[in-house]
């Protein structure tokens, strides 16, 4: 279970699945909606923490009691409102992480300016997927497997704990393949808090607290996580 709360602004057929997945994974999911229909739909879908309010009103947004470490998810259907809401939330909670959904490069740019921490452009990802289907059938298969709920194959991030076998080992000297996983990249705390791809050519060393992102079969990923923790 993820130990944070999230406020999801907007509830539509587009985001029903997201709400469903999040409610299983995070500590508490608050759904904030603007219309009575969306409110009724969320309640009918079994969510108890649903608030109906005018998201353009800052005083009402303040009353939500958002903590610094909470996530704010802006997925309103109206992209004008979504940008405005992002701006309002960023002004009210400058340290909170704001994740927003965009539907065009222009909106993405505006959301970025409004203070969104992460922006997902609905169509950019889809366009890339079409390109992959057309030109990279093997890549398409792999991505489908990674995102299919039925497959036992995925990405996983793991933090190197104290007294880990990896502590102090150079990245090039460690053979991940014998564990059945592939290291895609990491956050090397010594250098910065930026994610570095393993293919970037930098010589990194594993240290306690570094975060690794690996890809592999779930069972191998779990075994590997146990291995670095043991």
């Amino acid at each position: 279970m993820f130990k944070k709360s999230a406020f999801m602004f907007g509830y539509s057929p587009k985001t029903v699945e997201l709400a469903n997945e999040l409610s299983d994974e995070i500590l508490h999911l608050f759904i904030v909606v603007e219309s009575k229909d969306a409110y009724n739909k969320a309640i009918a879908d079994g969510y108890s923490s649903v608030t109906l309010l005018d998201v353009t009103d800052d005083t009402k947004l303040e009353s939500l009691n958002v903590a610094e470490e909470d996530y704010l998810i802006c997925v309103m259907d109206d992209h004008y409102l979504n940008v405005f809401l992002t701006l309002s939330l960023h002004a009210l909670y400058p340290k909170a992480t704001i994740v927003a959904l965009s539907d065009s490069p222009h909106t993405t740019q505006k959301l970025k300016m409004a203070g969104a921490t992460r922006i997902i452009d609905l169509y950019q990802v889809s366009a890339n997927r079409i390109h992959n289907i057309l030109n990279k059938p093997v890549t398409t298969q792999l991505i489908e497997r990674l995102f299919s709920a039925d497959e036992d194959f995925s990405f996983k991030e793991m933090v190197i704990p104290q007294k880990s076998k990896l502590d102090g080992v150079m990245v090039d000297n460690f053979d991940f393949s014998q564990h059945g996983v592939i290291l895609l990249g990491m956050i090397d705390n010594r250098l910065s808090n930026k994610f570095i791809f393993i293919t970037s050519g930098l010589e990194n060393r594993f240290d306690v607290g570094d975060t690794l992102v690996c890809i592999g079969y779930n069972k191998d990923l779990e075994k590997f996580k146990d291995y670095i923790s043991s």
Partner: protein
Amino acid sequence: MLINLITKFAFFLNGSKKYKQFKYIASNFLKESDYPYKKYFDIFMILLIVISIAILVYEVKHPVADWVDFFDIYIVTVIFTIEYLARAWVHNDWHVMVVREYTECQFLKRNFLLWKPTKLVLKEKLTYLTTPTAIIDLLAILPAYRPLRVLRIFVLFRVFKLLRYTKSIHQFLNVLATKKFELFTLLFLLVFITVTAGIAIYVFEAKQNDNIDTLFDALYWALITISTVGYGDISPVTIEGRVVSMLIIVTGIAMISFVTSVIVSSFSEKLTELKENRIVEEMNKQDSFMIICGYGQMTRMFLKHYAKEYDKSYIIIEKDKEQVEVAIKEGYSAIHEDPTRHDVITKFNTDYSNITLLALTGSDVANVYITLNAKAISKNIRVITRASSQSIAKKSRLAGADSVVMPNLIANRMLFTAITQPVMYRAIYAVLTGEHLAQLDEVDLKYHQKLVGKTIREIDVRQHKLLCIGVHASCSNRFIFNAPLEYQLEKEDVLLLMGRQVSINHFKEINEEVSYV
């Protein structure tokens, strides 16, 4: 006995694959404008026509060598005759009619009469032979009959044959055909005024004017005057004649303006259609191309990133005229049509080209319908469709879609990852958006034969700052994730690598080798 033999021959033709294939190819060469090799045949025929006309013009004042005459009379004419007969031959199938009639007779236990299907076939062929184009074809052959020198002028009919091979002339005539009523009305008016003015000038001037002897002279003068050409060889000498001249000159100017405006308006009305037909024709000349249905955000995004990669091998079909204009303004080739219409997709060369159709309209219902339409036209059309939910995706697959893209599903997965596993999000984002520093790319060993036979250890992708995610093994047709170091690559395997685009391109470049065996 003879009827039996002919019937057997019809059955033989009906069962002969070689004969059918031969006729199919001949028909494609003669009739199918989408057939990729037809253009070569057309060019050849145009060349023959041009040579034939050039000989006609040259020999008016110069003697020509015997071999040139031989070429013109026999070679060109024989080719034209073969073409004329071949067109009549491919027009319909005699053997099919005979077989059908015979089978029906057997079924209904009635007497089989060979003349019945033969008569039908001949009637159809005769109908074809009396069409203007077939008559032109026939007249173009006549100049070969030397005893009648006057027939030489029929060489000019060979020029008309160009209509068959040049689309622009054909299109011009088609456009004029749409204004048939207006043009015929004007022609009738022209004839009426010319005849009236001709008679009038004949009555007024036949006795006074030395240049007007007959009614023909008067009619000739009227036509030359009304057309505003005015050679001046015949001119009125009486007051009455001059008044008639003034009247028909004014009428002539008005009529010419009217004809011009009719032709111009018909062209401006058809201009968009002509342009769009030309785009479709250009597309059909390609071996493989992409039809993108809908010009919404997804199409925009797709083309923004990949239009250069697909060069000119795509066409957008959009039913909103304003969107079409936007697409054209943004530099993409687009036509204004409703992609859900069956006849819109049939415009494309579904028989000879590899077509990929992207159903990316904003409506799920339209996308499913487009998918069904495309698959109904040809199973070979590869369809990638957009769906907003799992249930629509299921319906799209049932409709025959080869791949389904669900923007919401992918976006939700990314939003979820961004919240629950923010570090991993960076990796996923890069993989899904194809960022240059973490491109996932495929190395097809068909085109990189230098890698065949080597093991994963030997190719050592790490020295190229690449990551080998796995291999799609051709022998087992499955993807081997994290392929073992001792795995030996085979000639149809596909290597899946991750890394900077520049590293991948370099790796591909040094291992590029195509086997043509």
